[in-house]
């Protein structure tokens, strides 16, 4: 048995040691490896910083828990309830003009108008993103921002980070839009400094927000569509006394997904595309004494789906299955002792398990791979807006999360059950006045890694700054903005440990992004009652990009590529009042993305990176009247390349996906019944987002929604 010798590693330009098997008896997380071999002052600073961070974290929790103790120890039964308090911050209505970084939102009505049923499809209507879509109802949908790779995009569900330590990318196709109130995309560092440290730790963030109102409501939808697709969901909100509110959401989807296709002269019917999904969610909110609130969330997801794979010439066989389970719960406590100070503590545990049944390579035989991930997350956030420093706010966030991947040793032969403990500390400040907004933040990341048996990647730490400015020279309606963010992403467990391809010597992938933009908004009571335009130009670099490098029989993940990107994102939306009862809404987005390989000496230097169109965009037009509404939506993409070399054989054609819908609404004794018919991809084009994964052609959906 030959065991490779371990040499001191050089990771991320750092010097350290891999955690050797003999080291694993001592699973101390205090094993510190620094970014670079630097002077003793640097080490001293880091140690001081860690001590401060740990002390502050402890202090933070103590401070946060004090009012809870106070609350439960109080004997005064005369609680004074305040009416709902609306805090209005100047220039903070959430529009693009109010943000110093690109910010795009799709609200409930937008989601209805676009005819999307999952978050992945919703994001196709935003600029600056590339959605990889493997087609069909069950196909993976991942989102990459400005060519940086899906692993650089963080996804938050009601403020809860949805992590995947195994692949690093989140399947947004599994999040239904039915219960979403808003889908928000932030590129760069958000101006909202009162947020968990993980919001600072990515190049961009997708935030999915569910309905959070406290009144009583019921919304139920049934839907039927082509390819034997059926969906039913119900959302129920109910107050429980004066202080409690509970909401429930259930969603069921079943489809055979067996659509016909014809691409490049290869035709047939997609098989093994069946999907069955059940999703449930429960939210409980408690608004206690005027300073306290508590939110609890429980989310359950189960899906069983066929994995049809790519279309293979002359081989229609496909039997791979994937069963996924996801369960997470979150508890969020918030304490607002004064208008100048607020703080929150959140705890989350997330379990996800996949059972992947694949052909074994022997005719008729299958093998089932098991993957379980656990993530436990504890975070503390505090914001202080001192009255004596008008317009200035400070925030501090601390987050500690622990990931573990369990799988059979067939896949993690070098390391079994790898674990990672990540500590994030973010300090930030924001200044806002009539003509200027400035947000600055500094994130310190420390990741410690070990495995139950075998090798593990060395520990890593890094400081990541971000700065953004917004300038309002002509009042609130027009802004000029600039921002910079330096961030990195750690290699995923698949990158590091997966059998045959894993490389535990990988460096993190580093990215830097500059953004310059402008936004204008206009609101009036006239015929053009809303108009919003934003345009942003950017330049960025990704260094040490992690890609698979081919060998003879195996591939290995390696840091071989650099990528540079530059581009422009434009968003336009306008609402036009046609009459007292009729309106028209037009939204368009356009992205130009020059994202090329920038690796010195590479034969593909200057080539556009894979699956990244230079030109892409979307449009929607909605006519709304009191009884009926109708809409048209378009998603289009220019040509892309399926492989790294930009040659014609690797080119994928551009596509246009046009859809139409008509909805009628009736008010029935305080309730609302909406019937909607949709014709999707009306040109019947089996276009490919990913090569040899054809999208469904023309298809139809009919839905009924009851709201009380």
């Amino acid at each position, binding site marked *: *048995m*030959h*065991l*490779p*010798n*371990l040499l001191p590693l050089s990771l991320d330009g750092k010097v350290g040691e891999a955690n050797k098997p003999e080291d694993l008896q001592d699973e101390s997380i205090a094993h510190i490896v620094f970014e670079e071999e630097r002077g003793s002052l640097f080490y001293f600073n880091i140690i001081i910083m860690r001590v401060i961070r740990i002390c502050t974290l402890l202090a933070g929790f103590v401070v946060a828990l004090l009012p809870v103790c106070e609350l439960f120890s109080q004997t005064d039964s005369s609680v004074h309830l305040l009416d709902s308090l609306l805090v209005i911050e100047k220039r903070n209505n959430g529009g693009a003009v109010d943000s110093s970084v690109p910010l795009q939102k799709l609200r409930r009505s937008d989601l209805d108008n676009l005819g999307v049923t999952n978050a992945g499809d919703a994001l196709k209507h935003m600029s600056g993103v590339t959605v990889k879509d493997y087609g069909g109802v069950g196909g993976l949908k991942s989102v990459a921002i400005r060519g940086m790779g899906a692993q650089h995009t963080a996804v938050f569900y009601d403020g809860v980070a949805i992590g995947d330590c195994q692949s690093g990318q989140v399947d947004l196709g599994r999040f239904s839009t039915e219960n979403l109130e808003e889908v928000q995309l932030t590129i760069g560092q958000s101006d909202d400094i009162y947020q968990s440290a993980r919001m600072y730790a990515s190049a961009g963030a997708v935030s999915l927000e569910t309905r959070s109102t406290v009144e009583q409501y019921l919304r139920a939808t049934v839907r039927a569509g082509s390819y034997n697709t059926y969906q039913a969901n119900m959302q129920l909100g109910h107050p429980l006394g004066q202080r409690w509110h509970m909401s429930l959401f259930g969603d069921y989807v079943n489809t055979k997904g067996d659509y016909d296709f014809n691409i490049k*002269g290869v035709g047939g019917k997609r098989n093994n595309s069946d999907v069955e999904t059940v999703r449930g969610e429960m939210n409980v909110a408690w608004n206690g004494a005027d300073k306290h609130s508590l939110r609890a969330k429980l989310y359950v997801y189960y899906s069983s789906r066929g994995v049809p*794979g790519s279309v*293979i*010439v*002359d*081989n229609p*066989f*496909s039997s791979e299955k994937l069963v996924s389970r996801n369960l997470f719960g979150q508890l969020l406590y918030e304490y607002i002792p004064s208008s100048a100070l607020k703080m929150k503590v959140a705890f989350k545990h997330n379990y996800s398990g996949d059972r992947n049944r694949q*052909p*074994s*390579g*022997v*005719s*008729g035989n299958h*093998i089932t791979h098991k993957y379980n991930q656990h993530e436990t997350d504890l975070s503390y956030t505090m914001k202080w807006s001192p009255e004596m420093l008008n317009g200035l706010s400070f925030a501090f966030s601390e987050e500690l999360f622990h990931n573990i991947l369990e799988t059979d040793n*067939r896949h993690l*032969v070098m390391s079994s059950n790898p674990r990672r403990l990540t500590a994030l500390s973010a300090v930030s400040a924001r200044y806002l006045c009539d003509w200027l907004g400035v947000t600055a933040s500094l994130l310190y990341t420390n990741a410690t890694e070990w495995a139950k048996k075998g090798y593990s990647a060395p520990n890593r730490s890094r400081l990541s700054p971000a700065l953004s400015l917004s300038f309002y020279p002509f009042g609130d309606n027009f802004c000029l903005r600039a921002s910079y963010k330096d961030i990195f992403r750690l290699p995923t467990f698949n990158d590091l440990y997966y059998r*045959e391809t894993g*490389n535990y010597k990988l460096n993190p992938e580093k990215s830097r992004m500059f953004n310059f933009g402008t936004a204008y908004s206009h609101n009036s009571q006239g015929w053009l009652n809303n108009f919003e335009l934003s345009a942003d130009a950017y330049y960025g670099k990704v260094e040490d990009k992690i*890609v698979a*490098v*081919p*060998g*003879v*029989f195996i591939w*290995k993940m*390696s840091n071989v590529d650099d990528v540079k990107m530059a581009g422009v994102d434009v968003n336009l939306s*306008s609402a*036009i009042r*046609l009459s007292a009862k009729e309106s028209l809404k037009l939204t*368009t987005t*356009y992205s*130009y993305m020059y994202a090329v390989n920038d*690796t010195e000496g590479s*034969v593909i230097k200057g*080539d556009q990176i894979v699956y990244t169109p230079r*030109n892409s*965009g979307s*449009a929607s*037009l909605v006519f709304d009247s009191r009884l009926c509404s109708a809409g048209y939506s*378009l998603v289009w993409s*220019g*040509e892309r390349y*399926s*492989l*790294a*070399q*930009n*040659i*014609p*054989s690797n080119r994928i054609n*551009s596509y*246009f996906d046009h859809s139409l819908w008509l909805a009628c609404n009736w008010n029935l004794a305080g309730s609302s019944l909406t019937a909607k018919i949709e014709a999707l991809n009306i040109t019947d084009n089996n276009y490919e987002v990913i*090569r040899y994964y054809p999208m469904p052609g023309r298809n139809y959906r009919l839905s009924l929604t009851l709201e009380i």
Partner: protein
Amino acid sequence: MKKLFSILSLITVALFSFTSCDEENDSIYNYVVNEGNWYEAPSVAPDFYVLNCGNWGGNDASVQYCNFNAGMVTSPLYDKGIFAQQNANAILGDLAQDMLWVKDKLFVTVSGSQKIEILNENGKRLRAPIKFEAEGASPRMLATDGENVYVTNYDGNVYVYNAETSEFVKTISVGTRPEGICYCDGYLVVNNSGDLYAYNGTVSVIKLETGESRSINLTNPYTASVVCNGAVYIIDSGNYYDILSNIYRISLEDATAQPLNICASAIATYENTLYYVNNSWSNEAGAFVASPLYALDVVTNSTQEVLAEYEMGNVNSLSVNPENGDIFVGYNATENGVLGTMHIYNMGGKLKSVFDVGYYTCGARFENR
């Protein structure tokens, strides 16, 4: 009316902008892949072919048709190569694995597409492809005794196809996931790579006359299998982790495997010489490490480096022209999704020619393998 005009203007501008943007793409993506001359149609008879595996799930396997003296090499691209050109733009398929020239017919196994294509020397289909219609029944490697073609298949069998009558004449059951195969002096030697991730491979030694089959336990005998000076040599690829690859000499009489204690990823043979090269992952280096090209005289057991102009690199295939001993070395690009190259050296290691090949080339194929 003004409102209507404004609305129509907005829509027109938006739609026009989409059209014009798409048109711009043509100029942006105007890229010339190869600076050399690639012939799209065969003008002279071929003296060798190059088979390119292609990308997994990419349906981009290809065959190149070559005449060395004429300096002719057809396109390595699946949609511009000789197969598409000769067969009405048909696609060869997914993951070509092996090619053999028997009785003026080219047999090509296309593993992902689960079929065998039978072509004439120009690459034109002589008949409809032979499809193996069961999931996972993927044809892999080929061997011949001059009359029959032996095809390993992941369904655990070797299929025997008579090249003259164009019929399957026999099915021989072997081990799990058979890969490389050799015919030698009335014996078939079959590498069975074993269960997925289990590394419990075996080698089957089958005496064709009697049907007697014996098995040798190894780790991961894979596709490489050659006959040299009347003996069969195979590569056991190890487990890519702590069991290293090794070349074995298979004894046909007593069905034993003698390790040569040589790490290798590709082998080829010419007369008494066994050429080998190793390109494997090094945990120490954190990179793939390539070895020089060695020539082992199996009679004298002496080894020497093939020096001169040999370039160490990401070697994916090794082939030797049986006519003159020229060595054909197929290199993968070091980056995924980039075409490979083929270098032709003479026996002294002098570089004679370089040309582009497709993705993950399986190597050159000659009339007498």
